[in-house]
Each structure stands twice: as C-alpha cells, then as structure tokens.
C-alpha cells in the first residue's frame, strides 16, 4: 500500500457510536484538523460586536491556531483578517483589544488600515534613491490575509473558506432561534475567563454537549436541584447533529431517579450557609433555566440561570486547549439583576461550583487513554444509536454522535 494515499485513520465500523482514542493524540490528525476544520467550510466564533463598538476598535481572537484581528472600520463595517504581517510574518497586534487608526508592524513598519489593506511600506522608494522595493511592487498585492466574517445578532463569526454555506443556513433554524432568544437586546461584556486544559480540544467539545454527564459529574447541579434529568428538557440538533443544544426547565423537577441510586451527585443533608447564591430571576418566558448550545466546531453559548456566556475553544496542540469565556449581561440590566449575574458567576468558569470539573475531566480522559492501541474506542451508545432531537429524555449521547458526524465529514474519516 502506498502510505501517501492511505487515509490517516480508518473509523470503526460501528460508526459514530465509537470514537477512536487516536484522534485525541495523533499529531498528524491534529495538523489535518487545522486544514480541514479550522480552515474548512465552517463558521468560527470570533467575538461580540459589543466588544468593538466604535470605528477603530479592535479585538484579537483565534481560529484554531491562527491569530486573527477583528476591527471596526471608519465606516462602521466589521473586518477580520489574520494577525500576521504580510512582510515576514510577525504578529501584528499583541494586545487583546484596543483602538487604532491603523496597524503598524513593529518589525519594519509596514502599515495596514482597518480593513487589512497595506497602506505603506517603510522606505518603499529606498534612501537617497537607492534601495527600496522593486518598481513593480504593489501595495494592493500584500494586504493581510482576509477572513470572511459575518455579524449576526451581535455575534461575529468568521471563516477562511469560500465554501462555507451562508451563516444562517449553516446554523439551521433551531440554532438561529436560540441565538435570537438570548441576543434579543444589546449586551454588555462583564468580563473574561481563560482556562488552560491539558486535553485535546475535542474532549471539551464532547463534554460541552454531553447532557449525560452534567448531573452526575457536577454534583452541585444535582444537590441543589439546579439541573436534573428528571426536569423537563431535551436536546435539539441541527445540520445532522453538527450543532446541538441541551436544555432544562428548573421548575419542572420530579422527585426520584437519583435518590437511592448511589450516584454520588446527590449529596444528602447539605445546605448553603448563604443561599442568596442561588437567587435567580426568570428572564425567558419559555421557562428554560439551563441551555447549552454548541455550534460546530468550537463555540459554546450558555445560559445557566442568569449567567450568559460564550465559550471559544482554542486548540494548542494535540494535548492542550484553551477555553476563552466571555461573560455578558444586557445593557439595560437593573442593579439587582446585574448583581445576581455576577454572584451566580460563582457557578461558572474555572472556579465555578458547577463547571470547575469540566476543566479537569478531559485531562483525566487524556491521561486514561495514553498508550491505547489503534483499536481502542470510546463507546457512545447512550440513548440508542440515532442522532435526533428529543424532549423525551436527556439520558442520551445523540449530541456527541452529532459532533462526530460533522468531524468525520470534514476530515474524510
């Protein structure tokens, strides 16, 4: 067999009810992901429009391993481009955010405008008529590599691919509806978390979509009845399961199922010394109190009671990923609600009562699967083998099978 034409990986015959552990550690597969997923025909979350409110405002972000700048031009239009000087490749902008008239590279002072077009080259005509660029050098040929971007309901997404479908079509109606549900009025950023996880980026994507683990691993959820599988809820899938949402309605809990099962997630006889942590306000008429939306490949949009956030997963090699949280509220929050959001932020982020475990559980998997052979796979059969939306039960891994469906399609596995 010719090694050049042999696929990197043969997916198990069972299909997406199995995921080979090798995809979590293989360097060649990781490199191929950068090309086929991060430069592939999908949309990547970049930032919020609220972060670049006025002309000249910019924010740096990532698409996979590629650093990206998102800037608002003088005419108000949003532009995204790679944060890499077209001369010798130096990173152009080192700040996380700010305001600029133009981007000037520190190395040799090539200067770009807010659309990413090259406007000037230092000593282009040389010095004393000697040196300089060749006479046929055209500024127009050396702009920053553009990223196609779209602003949708206050969120900005980008793609390198001309083949990415129109954004709303890519999301599908249910995912569009969930974004509209939350982004129905102007938002304001309350702050950021950045969390380094020592696991492959896909382990976090699986975790974020996994309604099965949520009320088992996260005992805080279950103990304080914030989220249980005995509440009304469901999973909603779009685009063949590439995107998913799982949700629950806090007010609808039935007793039973957890009690007496020995699942460690219900800690008996426990109370909060300061129960004000769990005070919340019903903000949405549909009664949904927890909604975790995962947009393929690496964007997570969450509502956990009154905490609202976007999470962006940034791969940093096969064994590390960084989670970027942007936590927000609404511009018109009254003081009481704002206060509640900030207090409930104790539930989320790297120190969150609910979410701290997610920073480490991927690492437990990564450590557990070290040394596995090429025929070792994860078993993903909870809720059957199909990939479909349901409100019947959240004891399912259909959302994860959906992720692997998208992954296999793009990777050609």
């Amino acid at each position: 067999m010719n090694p050049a034409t042999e696929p990197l990986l043969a997916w198990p015959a069972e299909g997406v009810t199995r995921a080979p552990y090798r995809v979590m550690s293989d360097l060649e597969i990781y490199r191929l992901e950068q090309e086929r997923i991060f430069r592939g025909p999908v949309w990547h979350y970049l930032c919020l429009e609220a972060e670049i409110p006025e002309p000249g405002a910019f924010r740096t972000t990532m698409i996979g391993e590629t650093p990206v700048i998102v800037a608002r031009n003088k005419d108000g239009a949003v532009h995204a481009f790679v944060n890499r000087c077209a001369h010798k490749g130096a990173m152009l902008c080192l700040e996380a955010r700010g305001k600029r008239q133009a981007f000037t590279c520190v190395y040799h002072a090539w200067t770009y405008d807010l659309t990413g077009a090259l406007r000037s080259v230092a000593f282009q005509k040389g010095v004393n008529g000697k040196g300089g660029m060749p006479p046929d050098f055209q500024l127009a040929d050396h702009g920053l590599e553009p990223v196609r971007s779209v602003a949708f309901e206050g969120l900005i997404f980008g793609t390198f691919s001309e083949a990415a479908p129109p954004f709303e079509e890519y999301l599908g109606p249910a995912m569009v509806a969930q974004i509209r549900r939350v982004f129905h009025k102007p938002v304001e950023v309350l702050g950021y978390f950045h969390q380094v996880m020592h696991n492959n980026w896909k382990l976090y994507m699986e975790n974020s979509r996994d309604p099965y683990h949520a009320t088992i691993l996260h005992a805080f959820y279950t103990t304080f009845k914030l989220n249980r599988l005995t509440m009304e809820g469901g999973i909603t899938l779009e685009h063949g399961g590439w995107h998913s949402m799982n949700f629950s309605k806090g007010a609808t809990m039935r007793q039973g199922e957890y009690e007496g099962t020995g699942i460690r997630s219900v800690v008996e006889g426990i109370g909060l010394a300061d129960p004000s942590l769990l005070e919340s306000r019903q903000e949405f008429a549909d009664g949904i109190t927890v909604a975790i939306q995962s947009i393929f490949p690496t964007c997570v949009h969450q509502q956990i009671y009154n905490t609202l956030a976007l999470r962006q997963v940034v791969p940093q090699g096969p064994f590390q990923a960084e989670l970027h949280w942007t936590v927000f509220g609404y511009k018109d929050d009254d003081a009481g609600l704002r206060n509640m959001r900030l207090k409930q932020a104790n539930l989320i982020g790297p120190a969150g009562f609910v979410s701290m475990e997610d920073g480490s559980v991927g690492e437990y998997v990564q450590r557990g699967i070290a040394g596995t052979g090429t025929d070792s796979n994860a078993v993903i059969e909870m809720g059957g083998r199909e990939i479909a939306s349901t409100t019947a039960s959240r004891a399912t891994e259909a959302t994860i099978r959906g992720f692997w469906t998208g992954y296999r399609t793009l990777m050609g596995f």
Partner: protein
Amino acid sequence: MTASILNDTLRRQIEDLHTRYIRTIDDDRLEEWPALFTETCLYKITTRENYDQGLPLAVMECRSRGMLVDRVTGLRRINVYEPQRYSHQVSGLTVEQIDERTASCRSNYLVVRTTGDGSMILFSAGIYLDRIVLQDGCTLFAERVVVADSRRIETLLAIPL
C-alpha cells in the same frame, strides 16, 4: 494626624493575620479560613485583565462569610478535583492606617500548586488588596481582593488563593 502614624500593635496583628491566612490554606485547614473574615466580608479573585478594564466579573466572589463557608463545603463534599496543595509566598506588605480600627493593605503573593502525582506548577502570582478591621481585639479581613497577574488559569481553581 493619628491616621498617618501606624500603630505598632496593629501592624503586628495584621502581619499575624496574613500568616494565619497562609497557614489555614497551605495546611489544608480550610474550615478555619472563613473565621479570618468579617461576617459581611468581600473575598474576590479576579484577573489583571478584568480588573484593569473595570470589568466586574470575578473568578470567585464571596460577599459574606457564609459564602466562604459554602466554598469550603463545595471543596469538601461536592466538587470533584484532583488532590492538590498550595504553597503561598507573601511579601512586600504595605499598610496604610485609615482610622483606629481600619487599615488598607497591599502585598504580593505567589502560589505554587502541587498535585497528587507530584507535578508542581507556578499556579498564580499577583497582589492582595485588603481592608483589614479591628473587631473585638482581633484583626479580620473585611475585604480581600486577589488580582492575579495572568488571565490564564491552569485546569481549574478549586482552593482559594
């Protein structure tokens, strides 16, 4: 101008409070940690990134002693995390006396975290911004704001800084 002359006894009591704070955490006597704060205290961990931009989000924010107690309950009985220990190094304490029973303090901290398998990392470095009050002859934190220099947190932050 009594406010500008730091009472020696108060200074000693403040240093002592800092030492007891380190001991309760580094010796894993977390149950004793809330007692170092006033009933209506503020304990907050934020990052330089959020702090400098005036963004209110905190990594951890306890607005009462009860919330500190709840953090300890979480660590002991609810949350799941790998066994770990901190080693605090605190230095550069400055004390500004506000009135007879209140001082505003600042110090630098550095925390090394060691996990069960022996890996040891420089987990966090930054500053403590404190308001310390004298209550019934004891110094207590009325406010401790931890500003971490790095915006990044490795894996998770379970034990308070």
